[in-house]
């Protein structure tokens, strides 16, 4: 699939970035899915960045110049999405919640990637007792229900409740512990496969040290699936965060807005016909997870040339025709061995 490079000059860096390059080669339904996912994810990120400008009130604001906010007020002119039982403005909480969500995703996934990749590389390349111990530990973590594990870790780290960063980190740590085995397993499997590749053997024959082989030859080749895992795990991280908040292990409403926590508080409202306190944080969670999953799944499909859809051959597509004759001359090599 890389032969166009034979004739065409190298694409600029921007077009080779993971998501951008995926978008460029997608067509039809796959493109639609990716587009929806990207729009939703983009909205999430923009909202989190501009939360201070977008939100009408602070996340823990209970009153303004005209006095205290009413509690459980239906959506109206002053409070577009109504207020909660404690008197918080629902719209502001939902907007500020995106900031918590993005921070937790970034922190937790970053930590689990670093740890998982490092352990996976070492374990896969050296094997032996180190590998066996790490695999047993990873499997043991797999055996626990993730949410239970996250709760235990959260209690250990933060002793229950805490500040914004304390809460973020306790959530992120507990999610990290759950995710590290996944990254570890994937990278380890890739490393074991790559270890037998001729180019690694050829480096070995040249006398390269183990660290050089891991760093220069295996690392880049083993980490190609990471953008995909990142997006898929990000949505899972949101769900775990929301689950923790819902169960009361999240962040105090005074230190940050958190959708799971709000859902928990809205639980009692549902029976009395107050729908706005639960529906909007719920929608925020659903859209975020949907967006991230769509992006992840689309990348997954686009990475596999067997699943990836293409424009029909010979279809009258004007923009591609200038490239066609040049590549056709040099490319039958690829097509000859399907």
């Amino acid at each position: 699939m890389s032969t166009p490079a034979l004739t065409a000059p190298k694409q600029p860096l921007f077009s080779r970035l993971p998501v951008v390059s995926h978008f460029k080669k997608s067509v039809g339904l796959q493109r639609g899915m990716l587009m929806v996912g990207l729009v939703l994810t983009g909205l999430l990120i923009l909202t989190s960045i501009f939360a201070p400008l977008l939100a009408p009130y602070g996340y823990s604001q209970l009153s303004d110049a005209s006095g205290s906010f009413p509690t459980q007020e239906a959506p109206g002119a002053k409070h577009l999405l109504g207020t909660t039982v404690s008197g918080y403005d629902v719209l502001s909480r939902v907007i500020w919640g995106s900031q918590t969500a993005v921070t937790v995703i970034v922190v937790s996934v970053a930590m689990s990637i670093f740890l998982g990749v490092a352990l996976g590389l070492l374990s896969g390349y050296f094997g032996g007792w180190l590998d066996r111990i790490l695999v047993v530990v990873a499997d043991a973590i797999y055996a626990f229900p993730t949410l239970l594990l996250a709760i235990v870790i959260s209690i250990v780290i933060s002793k229950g409740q805490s500040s914004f960063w304390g809460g973020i980190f306790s959530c992120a740590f507990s999610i990290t512990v759950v995710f590290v085995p996944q990254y570890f397993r994937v990278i380890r499997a890739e490393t074991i496969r790559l270890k037998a590749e001729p180019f690694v053997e050829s480096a070995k024959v040249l006398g390269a040290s183990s660290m050089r082989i891991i760093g220069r030859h295996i690392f880049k080749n083993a980490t190609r699936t990471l953008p995909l895992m990142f997006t898929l795990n990000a949505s899972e991280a949101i769900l775990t965060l929301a689950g923790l908040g819902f169960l009361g292990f999240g962040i105090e409403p005074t230190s940050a807005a958190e959708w799971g926590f709000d859902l928990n508080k809205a639980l009692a409202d549902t029976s009395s016909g107050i729908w706005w306190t639960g529906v909007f944080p719920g929608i925020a969670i659903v859209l975020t997870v949907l967006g991230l999953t769509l992006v992840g799944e689309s990348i997954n499909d686009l990475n596999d040339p067997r699943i990836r859809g293409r424009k029909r051959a010979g279809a009258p597509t004007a923009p591609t025709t200038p490239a066609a004759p040049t590549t056709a001359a040099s490319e039958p090599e690829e097509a000859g061995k399907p």
Partner: protein
Amino acid sequence: MTTNLGHISDRAGNAEPVLSIDRLQVTFATDGGDVQAVKDVSLDVKSGEVVAIVGESGSGKTVTAKTILGLLPETAISSGAVLINGNNVISVSKSTLRKIRGRDVAMVFQEPSTALNPVFTVGWQIAEGIRAHATDGRRVSAKEAKLRATDALRKVGIPDPETRVNYYPHQFSGGQKQRVVIAAALALNPGLIVADEPTTALDVTVQAEILQLLRDLRDNYGTSIVLITHNMGVVADLADRVVVMYQGDVVEEASSRVLFAEPKVEYTKKLLAAVPHLGRHSASEGARGRLHQDGEILVEAKNLTIEYPGRFGRNGFKAVDNVSFTVSENEVFGLVGESGSGKSTIGRAIAGLNRTTGGSLKVLGYEMLDFKERTFRPLRKEIGFVFQDPAASFNPHLTIGECVAEPLIIHTKPSAAEARKKVGELLESVQLPASYAQRYPHELSGGQRQRASLARSLALNPRLLIADEPTSALDVSVQAKVLDLFKDIQEQFGFAALFISHDLAVVDMLSHWVGVLYKGQLVEQGIGNHVMGSPQHDYTKRLIASLPVPDPDEQARRREAHRALLGG
């Protein structure tokens, strides 16, 4: 046999064609735009005729073969006509196509071990086709299908078919598996068999048997065969007519004797000239004794044994058994053997990629029996290694320049400018432009990559080079160039080489001294051209006799000799 050949083609001359391809075009949609794999192919196959489609990779021969069975992927569109008994495969409905497959045309695949499903008995798999084609609405009973499967197995010469019909694929050897695949293709007596590289995955001795089987099918049942291959020896052995394809076009079509004797088109001439021919261009031509024995002995194996540990409760597997040989300075030692003979294991053991388990193997004075990576590492710069698959032996994320500079950076730590200069020189010594250092491995062709691989192994001016099947992944014309280059460079740099290959003709072209491995044992060694010319050991005789040569008349004579050898 030769008279028979002529007779068949005469008889075929006035018969109705079984297969007729008319102006076939196939286009694939790829990420880089549309690719025309087959541009304009027209050919006829008559009843009882063997037509070979030859060409190098990318010539469109496999795509043409797949079109005949309607096996093209969804990304392809085809135009033109492929007529089998009056049905146009390109335009018929899916259900008609299903009826045609198996009944009118069947396929034999390249790799018999993947063409068979490992969880079903071979009898079941053959019967599957029979039962799928229940004629006139009558269901074929399981018993009857099995009976017919047994018959099919008997036809292809599987001994004791009544028992073997209940065997699973893993209980057969590679050659027998290919026989089973052919039996499955034959089960419904199709008039036409499309064989896509049917012997490429097989050893030479097995290949000879399968070719004989295909020939018998044609002679006894009048089956037409479309043979797709890149091996000119196979073509000379089996084909009546040859179609040469190049970049999606038919460039020449002639009867096989005419084509080999007087090729008309320039491309065919070049292709035929590039095919290595046993007994021509031998490196040890005119040698009386072993050459280059005055220098230091670089590799010395004494009763070398390499055993792979068995699984729990089983004995280990002896890949190399009691092998003794030496490689001296300046000498090219050729190691030939079929798959599983242990030739690669020996090469890898010398490079320290495999551990030895018995006897003694001294590499540059280092005893490999007490191998420690730490103590062996200083010696690594004296040893170069060229791998079989040039595409896989380069890190896809590094440029060619970075790859070639790796050994320099590891062992001599040069400055960036020095490294760049040295890489440029190395690339030029293997006849690649120095500007190729900027390219990535996938931007080079197979032959160029193998040259770059050679450049990398030569970067530190090693005294010993191990080449493990360096040309078997390349096309013939590319192979010829790489072999020439290898020969030149060996003379120029003067390193000792262990040249490992399954191809006798290739080994003979390069090696001064040749060793023949069979099931882990070195059955014969001697001056290259003596071993090829007058082999002593029975196995070597068989090996050489079963190698098809690219010349139909000579091959017919060799075939008779081979049969006599097996019979007597």
